[in-house]
C-alpha cells in the first residue's frame, strides 16, 4: 500500500444553520441513505487505501455513531483500519484543534508510526467519486511536493467565494492561492483533497507548530507556494460541497436527475454506508409520489412531489410534501403541508402542521413534539 488516508471531519459550518446544531457537517445525512463522509470513506476504500484516520472535533456524537463499525467500508483489517481521533489532553497540550494543520499535528504520531510513503488528505463534506490513486500517480510523475485536487466551478452551481481559489501555470503548478476571496479571480477551486509525501507532511507540520501556525491552507499551501512544488490535479466529474443550507438542498435535489443517480449508484465503484436493516419502503392506499427519492423504512400515505425522504419517514394521510427534504425518522401527521423545507431528523409533526417557504428561501423545520404511537 502506497498511501494512508486522513479525513478532516472536525468542522462545523454556521452556514448550515440549525442543521449543524446536532452534528458535524461530515455526519450530515445526504441522498436519503448516506452520510456526507461516506463519499470520502468510499473513495478511500475504492482507491485501496486501507488505513484511514478520521479527525473529528465539533459535535462528533452523530459521526461516531455512524462510524461505530468500520466494516461497512471494508476497513477493520489487520493491515490498516479506521481510526477516529478526537482532541485529547496530553502532558504537553490541552487545547482543542486550533486549525486543520494543528489537528494533523496533534495526531502526528499516526503519521510517524505509519510506513506508507504517501498521505491522502480529504475533507468529510464533499459529495464526489474520485480515484485517489490517479492523483497519486500524477503527483509522483510530476515530482510534486504537494498535489491539490482542483475543479472548475460553475457559478450557477455554488457560491465560488466560499472556496479556496487557485491559479495555475501551463504545467499545472499552482502560482496563486486565495482562501475564500471576496472577489474570485478564477473559477478553479480546491476541493480540499491533497496528496503529499508522509515525511514531507511531518516536516511541514512540525515547522508550522514551532511557529504557532495552525491552518493547512493558509500556513502551508499559501505560505509555501513559492518554495515547494505545489501542483494542481484537475477533476471534472461531479463534486459538491454541502456546507451551506442552500448547497445542501441543491445537492440532494441533484439526485432526482437520472444521470447523476446513475453515476453514483449504478456505475462502478459503489458508495458504501452503514447498513440499517430497515424494511423496504411501503406505499399505502393514499400514496401519490412523483419525482422523489424514498429511502427504506418509509411509510407513505400522502402526496410527495420533487422531494427526498430519508430513512424511516412516515407521511400521514392527505399530507402534501413538495420540494422538500425530510431527514431520518420524521413522523408527519395527517393533513400536513410541507413546501420548500428541510425537516430535521427525528422530528414529530402534529397532524395539520403547515410549513411553507419560498423556493429561494429554504426553511429548516425543527419540531420536537411527543410522538403518539398507535
Amino acid at each position, binding site marked *: 500500500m502506497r498511501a494512508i488516508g486522513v479525513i478532516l471531519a472536525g468542522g462545523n459550518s454556521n452556514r448550515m444553520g440549525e442543521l449543524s446544531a446536532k452534528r458535524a457537517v461530515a455526519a450530515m445525512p445526504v441522498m436519503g*441513505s448516506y452520510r456526507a463522509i461516506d463519499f470520502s470513506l468510499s473513495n478511500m476504500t475504492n482507491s485501496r487505501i486501507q488505513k484511514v484516520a478520521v479527525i473529528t472535533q465539533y459535535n462528533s456524537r452523530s459521526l461516531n455513531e455512524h462510524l461505530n463499525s468500520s466494516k461497512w467500508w471494508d476497513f477493520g483489517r489487520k493491515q490498516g483500519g479506521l481510526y477516529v481521533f478526537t482532541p485529547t489532553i496530553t502532558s504537553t497540550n490541552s487545547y482543542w484543534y486550533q486549525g486543520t494543520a494543528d489537528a494533523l499535528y496533534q495526531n502526528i504520531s499516526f503519521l510517524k508510526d505509519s510506513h506508507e510513503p504517501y498521505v491522502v488528505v480529504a475533507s468529510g463534506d464533499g459529495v464526489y467519486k474520485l480515484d485517489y490513486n490517479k492523483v497519486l500517480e500524477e503527483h509522483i510523475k510530476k515530482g510534486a511536493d504537494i498535489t491539490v485536487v482542483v475543479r472548475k466551478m460553475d457559478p450557477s452551481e455554488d457560491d465560488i467565494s466560499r472556496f479556496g481559489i487557485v491559479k495555475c501555470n501551463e504545467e499545472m503548478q499552482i502560482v496563486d492561492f486565495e482562501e475564500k476571496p471576496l472577489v474570485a479571480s478564477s473559477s478553479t477551486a480546491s476541493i480540499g483533497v491533497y496528496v503529499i509525501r508522509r515525511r514531507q507532511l511531518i516536516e511541514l507540520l512540525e515547522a508550522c507548530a514551532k511557529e504557532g501556525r495552525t491552518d493547512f491552507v493558509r500556513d502551508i499551501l499559501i505560505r509555501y507556494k513559492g518554495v515547494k512544488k505545489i501542483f494542481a490535479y484537475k477533476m471534472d466529474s461531479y463534486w459538491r460541497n454541502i456546507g451551506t443550507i442552500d448547497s445542501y438542498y441543491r445537492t440532494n435535489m441533484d439526485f432526482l436527475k437520472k444521470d447523476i*443517480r446513475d453515476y*453514483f449508484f449504478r456505475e462502478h465503484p459503489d458508495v458504501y454506508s452503514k447498513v440499517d*436493516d430497515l424494511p423496504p419502503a*411501503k*406505499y399505502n*392506499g393514499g400514496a401519490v409520489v*412523483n419525482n422523489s427519492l424514498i*429511502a427504506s423504512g418509509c*411509510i407513505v400515505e400522502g402526496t410527495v412531489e420533487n422531494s427526498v425522504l430519508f430513512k424511516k419517514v412516515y407521511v400521514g394521510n392527505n399530507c402534501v410534501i413538495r420540494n422538500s427534504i425530510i431527514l431520518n425518522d420524521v413522523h408527519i401527521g395527517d393533513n400536513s403541508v410541507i413546501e420548500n423545507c428541510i425537516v430535521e431528523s427525528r422530528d414529530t409533526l402534529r397532524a395539520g402542521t403547515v410549513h411553507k417557504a419560498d423556493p429561494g428561501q429554504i426553511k429548516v423545520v425543527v419540531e420536537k413534539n411527543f410522538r403518539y404511537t398507535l
Partner: protein
Amino acid sequence: MIKKEMIAMLLAGGQGSRLGVLTSKLAKPAVAFGGKYKIIDFPLSNCINSGIDTVGVLTQYRPLRLNQHIGIGIPWDLDRNMGGVTVLPPYEKSTNSQWYTGTANAIFQNLEYIEYYNPEYVLILSGDHIYKMDYEVMLDFHKSMDADITLATYEVPMEEASRFGVVITDENGVIQEFEEKPEKPRSNKASMGIYIFKWSVLKEALQALKDVPSCDFGKHVIPHCHERGSKVVAYDFRGYWKDVGTLGSYWESNMELVDLVPEFNLYEEFWKIYTKSEILPPQYIDQEGTVRESIIGEGTEVYGEVSHSVIGAGVTIGKGAVVRDSIIMNGTVIGDGAVINKSIIAEDVQIGKNVELGVGEEAPNEKAPHIYSFGLVTIGENSVIPDNVKVGKNTAIFGPTEAEEYPDGLLKSGSSLIKVGDLA
C-alpha cells in the same frame, strides 16, 4: 473451555420443488421474500435476536446462493470469534460417504460440530418458514417443564390439520401421541419443525438410529425418544407463522405484507429482520410513476405504475409499464409499456417492451399442474422475455427466450417454456 448453553442447527438443504423454477437453481431458503429478504433471514434473525450466537447451517441442494448470502454471517452479527455461523455441507468419509439422507441424518453427520461447542441444549430449525419467534422463551418453557424434548406447535384450522404432523397432549402440554398427516386428525396442534433437545437425549437417539435409512426427526427421532420414555412437551406458539412451500402460499404471504397494517409487521422497532443488502441508495419514483399499496426495495426506479405488489431492490419499472398483484425480485427490468398481472418474477429477469403477462382464461398447467397453479405466471432468474409477446396464466418461463418460441406472439395459459436448469 468452550461451553454454549444452546446452539442452533438450521436445516437448509431442501430443494422446495413445489416452488418450481424459483428453486431450480437455488435452495428454497435462498428464495427472496418481502422485497429484500431471503427466507433463511427469518430463522437466522430469530436466532441472533434470541441470543443464540452459534448456528450450524446444513446445506445440500444447490448451496451456492446460500453460501454467498450467509458468508461469514456479518449481516446477522454472526461473525463471532467463538461460534457464529458455520455452513455444514455433506462431506466425504473414509467409509460410507453419503449425502444427507434425512433431517436427523444430516444432524447425525455433524455430531462433531455440536460436540465442539459442548451445549446443554440443541435447537433444530428449518429454513423455510416466515415467522418471528423468541427461542429463548421456548427454552425457558423447556426448562420449566423439565422436558427432554420440546416441540413447537401451531394451531391450524381443523380441516387443514391432515396436511401436518399433529400432536395430542395432556392438559399440561405433555405429548401423548403423534399422528403424521392423519386422515381424521384428533388435534389441530401441528408441529412446526422446531425442536429443542437436551443434547444428551439427542445424541443418544441419533446414535441409536444411525442405521435407519433417511432418518427423520418427525418420523423416527421423536417417536423413538417418546417410546423410550423421554418427556416430550408441546410449546404452543401464537403469532404469525407461514409455510411458504407452494407458489400460491408464497405469493399470498408476500401480498399480505402490503396490507395497511400487515399481520406480519416488518416495521416494528424490536425484532428486526436482518439480511445481506448490497444495494443502499433510495428508490426513485418518476414524475410519470405511481405506486399504491406496495412495498418497494432500495435503489429501484419506477417510471410506470405499480399497485398491490412487492418489488425488490435495484428493479427498473419502465415508462408506461403496469405492475399489479405481482412479486418482482432484485435487479429485474420491466420494459416500457409492459403489463404484468399476478406474476412472480425472479432475480435479474429482462421483460421486453409491451409484454403482457397473465392474459386470458385460466387453464391447468400441462406439465406440472400441482406446481404452476393459482393463476400465476412464474419466471425464473436471468430469464429474457422478448418484446411484444403475451403470456397466459398458470405458466412457467425459465431461461433466455426468443420471439419464435411464442406462437403468434402468445404463450398459452397452462404452457411452460423451460430452457435451462434441471427441468429443461
